[in-house]
């Protein structure tokens, strides 16, 4: 032991980080103190350790002073541990004979007393010196990557990510829970600010997905299980029964026109329930795949036991030789293996009924923005003819209320980012379709984006009214003759400085974006985190915006936060590139800070098994011992702390290392 201690030669570096650390910590003083500690051969302070000269200094000192342990006191290991390990390795020393002390986030940035902060830096450094002496040589393991990718969610984000990957030659599984891909974008009429038709730019991409040899499209399906680790995920996909054989259906839709229901009778979800469909239907003309489906809730064939056999199965007759209709179809499970996953599950719009004073669901003249998207659409419920719910009256005046559910502590605190722009788009389209007077009620106009402010100018020039003020209520009590029979919007006009009553025929609620009601289930399924508002959490808000804390799993689109189509597409491309970066490298280097079981000492109590958040621990019933899959272990240490016999050890965090670190910090007076 004595001999061993004498062989240890530590080099210590304290970084100024410009003035980030030096302003609050006396770096030369820290270096001077650490230089007096046992085993420390060399102790320096330096302006920027992470710079090239700083890194070269470490390599040079290793050679000149025969250093075999390095400690750097600087910023967070999250930022530069990797950098310094590289520098140590370049100097010919095992990168795990290095330890980093965080005296920036943990010290200089959070304290205001320079003397105390300097003392703290010395104490933390002393702990690291004591610890690094006990470090062991470790090797990084390489794990191969499965080249296939799973994309979850077939909105514009999932479509773009899948196409990017498939065009690069990667095999992609695209899972979509609805009968067709396309997501919210497929429901839009035009897109802002260019006003190009959403279907015209989306549907070619949709059909390309449907026919791409590298894409397996699993529509009307949901992921139910995921296990494994980066590079090797096992995924189970539940395929819901369409009662139509996808391979045999040609999309001729003869079955629909021959359905025993002569008139469509059931709410059409794609048209936001503004029109009706039959029990056998195709969601919309450009649906991908071009395959019909049967709704068992309303199809008479599924009610035969209750009713007399009313259904003559005219659809089967119409399908004829193709024999695509299969009433016996059952839910099936499909197991697939992928290396990387992109989650692009999108959003839901705010439920306007949560703000009763706006009258949605109470007054027929109140609509959500998504309903208006369908109403102005040529393939929508009225063929693009904007009329009220009575089916004939054209609105002569329309009020669009911005920020419904957004920017409000009572509902959702965040700005949904797209509503100002889509409200203006709808204002333009409604005016174009009806010639109505259109009033926009806004809190702030938020139009950051290429061509967006110019679009706002255009709307002003068109003669749309913009009234600044959060609307108090939409009501049907009239105070004057002109208000009789109208919906009255009561609002404080904060520019004019008084309360106004504006009677209109139609009210449009610009409902905001919020996470799906079941986003928590998705989050758990893929071991992701989410912020307090429920959107999936990126690894770093600036520098890793599509990464999650789970390696190999990426996020794109509105499931991560509200954004518009261009940003969603850019993010989807980034997520696809991240997947390719892993796939093309072919393998992953794993952090060696994993835990392992000392088999001789394991008593087989199984305490550790349910604790592992990564299901990395398995139990060998024959031997009565637990064992840990290194590839799955993320080094969280939960099992190590819980093991009653102390038979689980974690690399870089064994008892000797941790106790030395504690003794080191306690030894500092």
């Amino acid at each position: 032991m004595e001999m061993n201690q004498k062989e240890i030669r530590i080099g210590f570096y304290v970084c100024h980080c410009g003035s980030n650390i030096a302003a609050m910590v006396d770096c030369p003083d820290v270096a001077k103190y650490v230089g007096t500690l046992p085993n420390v051969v060399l102790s320096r302070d330096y302006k920027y350790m992470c710079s090239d000269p700083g890194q070269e200094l470490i390599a040079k000192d290793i050679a000149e002073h025969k250093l075999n342990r390095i400690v750097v006191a600087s910023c967070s290991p999250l930022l530069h541990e990797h950098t310094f390990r590289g520098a140590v390795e370049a100097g010919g020393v095992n990168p795990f004979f290095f330890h980093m002390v965080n005296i920036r986030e943990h010290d200089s940035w959070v304290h205001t007393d320079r003397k105390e902060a300097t003392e703290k830096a010395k104490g933390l450094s002393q702990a690291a010196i004591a610890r690094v002496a006990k470090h062991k040589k470790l090797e990084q393991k390489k794990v191969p990557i499965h080249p296939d990718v799973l994309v979850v969610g077939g909105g514009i984000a999932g479509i773009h990510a899948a196409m990017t990957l498939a065009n690069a030659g990667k095999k992609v599984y695209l899972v979509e829970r609805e009968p067709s891909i396309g997501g919210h974008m497929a429901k839009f009429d035009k897109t802002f600010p260019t006003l190009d038709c959403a279907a015209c730019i989306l549907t070619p991409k949709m059909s390309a997905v449907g026919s791409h040899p590298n894409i397996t499209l699993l529509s009307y399906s949901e992921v139910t299980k995921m296990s494994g680790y980066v590079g090797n995920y096992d995924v189970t996909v539940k395929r819901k029964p369409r009662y139509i054989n996808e391979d045999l259906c040609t999309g001729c839709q003869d079955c629909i026109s021959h359905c025993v229901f002569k008139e469509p009778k059931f709410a059409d979800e794609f048209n936001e329930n503004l029109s009706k469909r039959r029990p056998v239907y195709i969601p919309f003309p450009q649906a991908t795949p071009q395959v019909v489906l049967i709704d068992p809730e309303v199809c008479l064939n599924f009610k035969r036991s209750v009713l007399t056999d009313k259904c003559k199965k005219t659809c089967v007759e119409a399908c004829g030789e193709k024999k695509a209709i299969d009433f016996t179809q059952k839910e099936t499970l499909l197991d697939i293996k992928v290396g990387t996953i992109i989650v692009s599950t999108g959003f839901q719009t705010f439920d306007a009924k949560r703000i009763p004073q706006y009258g949605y669901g109470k007054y027929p003249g109140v609509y959500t923005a998504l309903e208006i998207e369908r109403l102005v659409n040529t393939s929508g419920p009225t063929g693009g003819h904007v009329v009220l719910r009575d089916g004939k009256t054209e609105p002569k005046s329309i009020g669009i209320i911005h920020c419904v559910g957004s920017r409000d502590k009572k509902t959702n605190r965040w700005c949904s980012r797209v509503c100002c722009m889509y409200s203006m788009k709808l204002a333009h389209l409604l005016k174009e379709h009806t010639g109505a007077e259109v009033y926009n009620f806004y809190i702030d106009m938020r139009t950051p984006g290429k061509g967006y402010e110019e679009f706002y100018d255009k709307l002003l020039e068109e003669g749309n009214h913009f009234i600044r003020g959060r609307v108090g209520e939409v009501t049907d009590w009239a105070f004057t003759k002109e208000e009789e029979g109208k919906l009255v919007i009561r609002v404080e006009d904060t520019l004019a400085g008084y309360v106004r009553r504006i009677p209109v025929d139609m009210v449009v609620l610009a409902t905001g974006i919020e996470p799906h009601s079941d986003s928590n289930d998705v989050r758990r399924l893929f071991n992701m985190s989410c912020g307090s508002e429920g959107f999936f959490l990126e690894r770093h808000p600036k520098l890793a915006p599509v990464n999650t804390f789970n390696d190999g799993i990426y996020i794109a689109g509105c499931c991560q936060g509200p954004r518009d189509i261009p940003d969603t597409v850019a993010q989807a491309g980034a997520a696809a590139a991240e997947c390719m970066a892993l796939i093309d490298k072919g393998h992953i280097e794993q952090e060696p800070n994993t835990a392992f079981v000392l088999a001789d000492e394991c008593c087989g109590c199984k305490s550790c098994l349910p604790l592992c958040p990564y299901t990395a621990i398995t139990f060998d019933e024959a031997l009565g011992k637990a064992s840990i899959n290194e590839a799955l272990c993320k080094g969280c240490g939960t099992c190590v702390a819980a093991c009653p016999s102390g038979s689980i050890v974690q690399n870089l965090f064994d008892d000797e290392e941790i106790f030395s670190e504690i003794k080191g910090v306690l030894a500092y007076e």
Partner: protein
Amino acid sequence: MVKYSYFPGCSLKGTGRAYEESLLPVMKALDIELEELDDWNCCGATAYMAVDEVKACVMASRNLAIAEKLGHRELMAPCSACYLVLNKTKHYIHESPSVHHVLDEALKVANLSYSGNIPVKHPLDVLVNTIGLDAIKKRVKNPLKGLKVAPYYGCQIVRPYSTFDDQYNPTTMDRLLEAIGCTVVKDFPLKTRCCGGSLTGTLPEPGLLCSYIILKEALKRGADVIATVCPLCQFNLDGYHDKIEAKWESVRIPTVYFTQLMGLAFGMNERELGLHRGFIPMKPLPAAFAQPVAT
């Protein structure tokens, strides 16, 4: 018989005495006894609240402390203003240590203390959510068939603390009135709009306009009567008809307490329920329930 602590506040002993006159027998009929706080003081509402919020809370906290000492599980405050200021004080006790400290010190001087735990309930909440509509229906002798009522809640029992109903579209009273046989004006859009509050005293023009709007809309929707839960609302909607008529038009419609309508449905005498106290009399009453039926 269940006992509640009862804080009447000044209105129920003065301008709003018809509220107390109808509340007590209705509660008794439903096996609820209200024990009035001993030596209660002003709740701290309106004027006090406007001058010094903390001192207003001190006044409210004394009433809460006395109620806690009395030992019943809940405190009933029928006046909306009392209900709000008592709940606001409770809110401060839980959320603001500095206000809590002031209240504690003030109560110490009076040899009182308050833990902040006794729930402050509005009778509407107790009647519908604790006693329940089924129990109320069982007590109805003369269902008020054919009486069309505009349910008017005012602002203070739903905002800012919406403890038992929606802030903008409350429905508790709607359901209660239906249970006693009334026809309720569906989705009365002004049910939580301002009655004018104390503006009728300080800035009469906007104050009276507030009352006028509500009265006019209730008439327009075919109501025979407006039902209210608040003495100030009742006072404003009932007391200024001459002025409103001079300024705009006649919108004469009676405004009564919901408890008065309950009393009528329970077969109680209209005079005992204080129905003669309104300026706009609730007459003629439909014959079926005009007179108590002997049982």
